[in-house]
C-alpha cells in the first residue's frame, strides 16, 4: 500500500497513458467495424466468411503482430502507433461480428416502414438502422473496451509503457504488490471506461431509458 502511495504520480501517468492507448483503438475499431459488419450482414454469400476471417484476426499472436508491424508499415519502433494499430486490429476482429449482429437485430418491419415512408437508402442507414442497432453495438463496445484495456498491457514489450509496466517491473523485482496493484488498476480503469460507455449510451439513446415504463 505504501508503495502505491509513494508511486501515485507514476501510476497515474501510466494509467493516463493506458487510457488513451485503449480508448483510441476502441473508437477506431468501432468506426472500422461498422461498415464491415453492415456489409457482412447485407452480403449474404460472403458475409459468413468475412465474419469468420475477422474473428480469426483475433487469433494472430499479439507478440508476432507487435514485432511485425513496424517493419510492415515503416513506423518507428517505439512509436505507440504500433500498439494502437495492433489493438485496433483486435478491436475490429471482436467488433465486426457484433456489428453484423447489431444490424441484424434491427426489426425488418421498422426498416421496411422507413423505406415506405420515403427514406432514401443513406437516410435509412444513418437515421434508422444505425441508431436502432445502438443497444447491441453498445454491448459490443463494452466488451471490446474491457478486453482492449486488458490486452493493452502487452505494450511494454515494445517499449510503450502503461499499466502493463507494473507487471514486468513487479515480476523482475519479485514484487507481488506491484503486480496486484497493476491488475487492480487495469480492472478499475476498464470498469470506469465501461461506465463512460454506458453513460454515452444513455445520452445517445434516450428512448431506451423509458422502455417498459408504460
Amino acid at each position, binding site marked *: 500500500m505504501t508503495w502505491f502511495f509513494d508511486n501515485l504520480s507514476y501510476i497515474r501517468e501510466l494509467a493516463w497513458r493506458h487510457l488513451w492507448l485503449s480508448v483510441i483503438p476502441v473508437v477506431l475499431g468501432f468506426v472500422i467495424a461498422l461498415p464491415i459488419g453492415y456489409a457482412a450482414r447485407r452480403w449474404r454469400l460472403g458475409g459468413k466468411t468475412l465474419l469468420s476471417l475477422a474473428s480469426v484476426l483475433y487469433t494472430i499472436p499479439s507478440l508476432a503482430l507487435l*514485432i511485425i508491424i*513496424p517493419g510492415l508499415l515503416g513506423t*518507428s519502433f517505439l512509436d505507440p502507433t504500433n500498439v494502437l494499430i495492433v489493438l485496433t486490429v483486435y478491436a475490429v476482429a471482436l467488433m465486426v461480428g457484433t456489428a453484423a449482429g447489431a444490424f441484424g437485430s434491427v426489426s425488418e418491419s421498422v426498416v421496411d416502414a422507413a423505406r415506405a415512408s420515403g427514406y432514401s437508402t443513406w437516410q435509412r442507414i444513418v437515421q434508422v438502422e444505425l441508431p436502432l442497432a445502438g443497444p447491441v453495438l453498445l454491448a459490443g463496445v463494452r466488451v471490446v473496451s474491457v478486453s482492449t484495456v486488458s490486452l493493452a498491457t502487452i505494450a511494454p*514489450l515494445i*517499449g510503450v509503457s502503461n499499466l502493463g509496466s507494473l507487471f514486468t517491473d513487479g*515480476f*523482475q*523485482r*519479485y514484487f507481488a504488490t506491484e503486480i496486484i496493484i497493476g491488475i487492480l488498476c487495469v480492472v478499475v480503469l476498464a470498469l470506469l471506461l465501461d461506465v463512460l460507455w454506458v453513460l454515452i449510451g444513455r445520452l445517445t439513446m434516450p428512448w431506451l431509458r423509458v422502455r417498459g415504463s408504460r
Partner: protein
Amino acid sequence: GSDPTNTSAGSGSKASASSSASGSTTQPIVVGSASFGESEILAEIYAQALTAKGFDASTHLDIGQREAYIGALKDGSISLFPEYTGNLLTYFDPKATATAPADVDAALKAALPDTLTTLTPSAAEDKDSYNVTADFAKKNNLHTIADLKGVSGLSLAGNPELKTRSYGVPGLDKVYGISGISFTPISDSGGPATVKALTSGKVDVADIYSTTPSISQNHLVTLSDPKNLVAAQNVVPLIRKDHDSADVDAVLNAVSAKLTTASLLELNTKFNGPDKPKAADVAADWLKANGLA
C-alpha cells in the same frame, strides 16, 4: 512533458530545467533501457550524469524486447543505451566466438551497424552464469562447470536462446563435454521464475545473470567457468554516432570508470530491496556517492 512516450517525467523535466554552455548546443539525448532493473538503473545513471553536466538528457525506460530497442536506436527514437558487450555482439553476429573482454570488444566494434558505436566498456560485468543450489552443489561436489560432467540426467533452465547459443547448451557440450541436458526455456532472463524453478528442484542448473541479488539471497552456488565458455559481458554505452561527441564521451567514460561488478550487485540489491525504490532514485544516490552529480 508533452512527449507521451516519456515515462520518466521526473528526470526529463530536470534535464530541461538545467542548462549550461555545452548542453545547450547539443541535441537532446534519450537514454533507453530494457525492462529489467539493472538496465533501468544504468540508463538513469547515464541520463542523470549527462544532465548534471548540462546535457538535455531524458529516459525511455522499460523496453521489453531487444528487437524493439535496437530498432529504436536505429530509427533515432532513442540515442543511448546501456548494453553488455557479449550479448550485443551475439545479437549482431550470432556466430561470433570471441569470449575474452578485449576480443569481444574488438569484435563488437566490427559487428556494429554504421550508425551505432560503443564507448569504452566498464570493468563492471553482468553475464550469464550457471548456478546450482547449495544442497545440489554439496551433494555432487560441484565447483566449476566442468564438474557437471559427472551428473547424469542434468536439467537446465534459462532464456530460450540458451538452447542454440554458443555459450548455452551447444557450448556446454563442445567446451565442457556435457551432453544430454534437458533444457527448460524460461523467458525472464534469470528472473524469479527461473530462480523458483531452481530452488523448487524443477531443474538442477539455472542460467542467472551474475549480478542478480537472488543468487546470494537463495544461497545459490555459481559454478566457475575456467574455460571461458561465457563471453565477457562488460557494461558499455551503446550510442548513435550522430549523438556521440567528446563531451558526451567524457561524461559516460567517467561513469564507466566508477562502475564495478560489485556496484552493479549493490544497485540491484537496493532496487529489489524491501522499499522497492524507483530506478531514478537508486541512480541518483549512486551518482552522488561517487561524486558524479
